[in-house]
């Protein structure tokens, strides 16, 4: 959010310095901006408009500060300042140069209040002022704002920008914006407006739909209205086809979340046969580790924030894995051969873990921030792909592959499989079964911790986090077939995609119920799940 805006400011500043003489001087801008002091919303709106009309790029700096809620005035002498909150104080900056200007107490400043309507207006105004900015990012956000506003006042600047533009994709966007303006302009010739309809139809997407619907005034010629309606139908049909891939994408994304939540369980429950009801709490511990890491980074090394998740991953693995080993050594190992009793003991442990976290961190949600690379979305055709979901899918698959590797191709994995398949014989061969048990359980628990790091990016980080996933993860493991990692993979994605195709038809609640009924019936057909494992371990 902040990065592109800073770029705009920087860009605007360069431009401003290069051409100060061509525009209104700073003093007159200051005079206009004084209108912000003590103004109500309509006053602020008018002042912003007047500022923008000077055409001075320096005005964009003030508007940007206004947009971000950084514009304040000193209560003492009513000078406008840009101010950022810093704890209980405010850090001040000069209006145009952004030079630091000391600090002030919060109560000495008054903020120029903005609401959504003003933000909307200012976005458009800044767009108009930065269409010619040397920075391509700034031009991109400018052209988006201009497209949405359809304000004929920008037409002239837009034409100039299109001529100058060297980036073909940006140029196309600018032409879309021009088309939107022409479309909305009742004074424009009919042919130009019909061409505009075609341009926007070609652009496609939801913003094309809304432009086609909203741009025409009541006295638009019927031919144009018809053309717009036709174009809308085309765009809608295209969107519908994309809708299916959107469903698949969302299903895969939900599946990856389920996979992450369940994969640790596939080890502790599937491989070892321990019904670990505290699994969800191990996931929760991973999420809280992320919170803790971010908290430390926030206070002592803010520069590392982008790396916080990567730092949290090994720690979460160790924390949850460590707790897992403790649980195994302290409780579970006394209960081998009695799988149903592990259920009771681990249920008790889950209560204890929940309450421990509640006591230490409080019962409230904790804020875990998304690093920039986890925020926002990209568009693939009409598909919206959010980065956090994308990374979680990648992460889930990576964890899966890694686990497979560990189990298949390491001595450790070999011993784990040996012990679960035939404990006595493994012991006879010199495998330290107790140690292997602890490591296996710890591995499953550690993976749950990794899942917690990922889930902290999309869900609440609260003491209840684990409970909301426990039932789902058992379903995934049982549906896929306990004891088989591939089963967990197939199970998670099948359930995820099924859910997402049912949801638009049946609604979120009913979709979930239908999926559960489906699992119940499916298990009647295949009592050992999708990928049944043969052998002794399964009947435990």
């Amino acid at each position, binding site marked *: *959010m902040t990065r592109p805006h800073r770029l705009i400011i920087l860009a605007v500043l360069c431009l401003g310095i290069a051409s100060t003489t061509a525009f209104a001087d700073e003093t007159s801008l200051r005079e206009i901006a004084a209108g912000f002091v003590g103004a109500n*919303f309509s006053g602020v709106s008018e002042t912003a408009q007047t500022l923008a009309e000077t055409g001075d790029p320096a005005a964009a700096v003030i508007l940007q500060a206004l947009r971000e*809620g950084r514009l304040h005035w000193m209560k003492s002498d009513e000078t406008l300042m840009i101010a950022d*909150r810093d704890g209980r104080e405010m850090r001040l900056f000069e209006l145009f140069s952004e030079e630091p200007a000391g600090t002030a107490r919060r109560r000495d400043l008054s*903020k120029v*209040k903005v*609401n*959504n*309507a003003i*933000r*909307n207006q200012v976005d458009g105004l800044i767009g108009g002022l930065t269409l010619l900015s040397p920075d391509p990012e700034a031009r991109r956000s400018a052209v988006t704002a201009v497209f949405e506003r359809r304000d004929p006042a920008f037409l002239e600047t837009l034409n100039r920008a299109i001529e100058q533009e060297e980036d073909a994709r940006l140029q196309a966007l600018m032409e879309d914006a021009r088309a939107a303006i022409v479309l909305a302009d009742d004074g424009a010739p009919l042919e130009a407006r019909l061409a505009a309809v075609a341009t926007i139809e070609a652009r496609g997407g*939801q*913003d094309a*739909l*809304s*432009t086609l*619907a*909203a*741009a025409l005034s009541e006295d638009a010629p019927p031919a144009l209205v018809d053309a717009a309606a036709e174009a809308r139908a085309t765009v809608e049909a295209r*969107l519908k086809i994309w809708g299916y891939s*959107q469903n698949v994408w*969302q299903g895969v*994304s*939900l599946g990856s*979340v389920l996979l992450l939540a369940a994969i640790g369980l596939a080890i502790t429950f599937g491989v070892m046969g321990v019904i670990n009801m505290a699994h969800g709490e191990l996931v929760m511990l991973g999420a809280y580790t992320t919170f803790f890491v971010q908290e430390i980074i926030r206070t002592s090394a803010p520069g590392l924030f982008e790396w916080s998740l990567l730092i949290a991953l090994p720690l979460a693995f160790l924390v949850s894995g460590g707790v897992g080993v403790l649980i195994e050594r302290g409780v579970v190992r006394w209960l081998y051969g009695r799988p149903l009793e592990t259920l009771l003991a681990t249920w008790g442990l889950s209560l204890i873990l*929940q*309450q421990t976290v*509640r006591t230490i961190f*409080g*019962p*409230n*949600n*904790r*804020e875990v921030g*998304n690093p920039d690379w986890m*925020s*926002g*979305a990209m568009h693939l055709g009409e598909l*919206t792909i*959010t*980065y*956090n*979901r994308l990374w979680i899918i990648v992460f889930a698959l990576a964890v899966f592959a890694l686990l497979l590797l560990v189990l298949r191709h390491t001595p450790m994995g070999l011993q784990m499989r040996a012990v679960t398949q035939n404990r006595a014989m493994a012991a006879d061969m010199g495998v330290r079964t107790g140690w292997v048990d602890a490591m296996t359980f710890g591995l499953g628990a550690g993976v749950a911790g990794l899942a917690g790091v990922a889930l902290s*990016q*999309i*869900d*609440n980080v*609260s*003491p*209840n986090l684990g*409970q*909301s996933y426990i039932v789902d993860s058992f379903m995934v493991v049982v549906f896929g077939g306990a004891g088989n990692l591939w089963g967990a993979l197939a199970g998670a994605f099948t359930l995820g995609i099924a*859910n*997402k195709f049912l*949801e*638009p038809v049946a*609604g*979120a*609640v009913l979709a*979930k119920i239908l999926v559960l009924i489906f699992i119940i019936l499916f298990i009647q057909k295949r009592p050992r799940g999708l990928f049944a494992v043969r052998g002794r371990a399964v009947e435990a």
Partner: protein
Amino acid sequence: MNKALAGLALGLGVVATTPAVAQDTIKVGILHSLSGTMAISETTLKDAMLMLIEEQNKNGGLLGMQIEPVVVDPASDWPLFAEKARELIEVNGVAAVFGCWTSVSRKSVLPVFEELNSLLFYPVQYEGEESQRNVFYTGAAPNQQAIPAVDYLMDQGVERWVLAGTDYVYPRTTNKILEQYLKDNGVAEEDVMINYTPFGHSDWQTIVADIKAFGSAGKMTAVVSTINGDANVPFYKELANQGIEATDIPVVAFSVGEEELAGIDTGPLVGHLAAWNYFMSADTDANHDFIDTWHAFIGDDTRVTNDPMEAHYIGFNMWVKAVEAAGTTDPDAVIDSIIGVSVPNLTGGYAAMMPNHHITKPVLIGEIQDDGQFEIVDSTNGLVVGDAWSDYLPESAPLISDWRKPLSCGNFNTETGQCGGTGG
């Protein structure tokens, strides 16, 4: 075994038969979940109540006695709420109970308060359609939150509405009322989309995409959210990631306050709205004092305050004032004396207890800021009286509530001239 059973029975019996006989303190019950799913919201209210009681005791207590809080944990378990309420009243002998969150917990304890004739102060916004002699509703009724919020958005030019809520009674009723209200204001049926999700819903991809699609019809669109606490964080995260900004499709929420925002990075949410009767950002001396006291009490000056805390603040002060006026904590006397009691709220006005056991409140519309606070962008002119029975639902339109004598009825039907719930 015999011994164990006998011991248990004895143990319970002792607990059950130790009512507070000689009172040198006045006991007040605090009935908020400290574990389970609702602990996330309710624990703060327990602390707020402890703070209020401590403050009152510092100022000399009540009727010359100290107030003693009795805290129990109903553990987000609705039948346990009823059991704990009974325990507080019968066993601990509390003079009044402050507590509950969500209608189901309140519905669960209602019969207990009615039967044992005690007092409950319920601090959370709710769906209305209730007025009970022993209950005081210090949170907002729908007309004190939802309708002013919709009015504000209409002023801002919103023409298309998504009513998104968690599937339980509060969203259902609120959306029913809003649907009727929007219709009365000329909004066409195809311009309203209603969507319900289960509790704790965490995968919002589909719904947010639907909202986006619904918003692309060329009319300004807004989401009215009655999504319940826990599901909000993933909802807002998904909104932010799919790039829905408040300038495109604003979301106005009735269950999202400072406390809920504490779990979210609000940077991408700036401009989304909430309607409450109190915001922590309210710039009044009373509020600054309240926040300072709270921070000192809880020992953490990053903790926020929120609307239900103010509701407890108002409710507790009203009760204190009513007890002082009556000279006793006897419920019947307090029920009579509390009507008309007026105490300062934290936003610079006064709250008065109305005959329908609801209170007067200002309605504030706030926009989320990037520091997790709300900036008040609009407020109603003057106070709004809580309406127990909505005028926008056909069945409840003729009902009124007035607990003053001689009417003393929570659901008087003005058409038939009869008090409901009596079989006649």
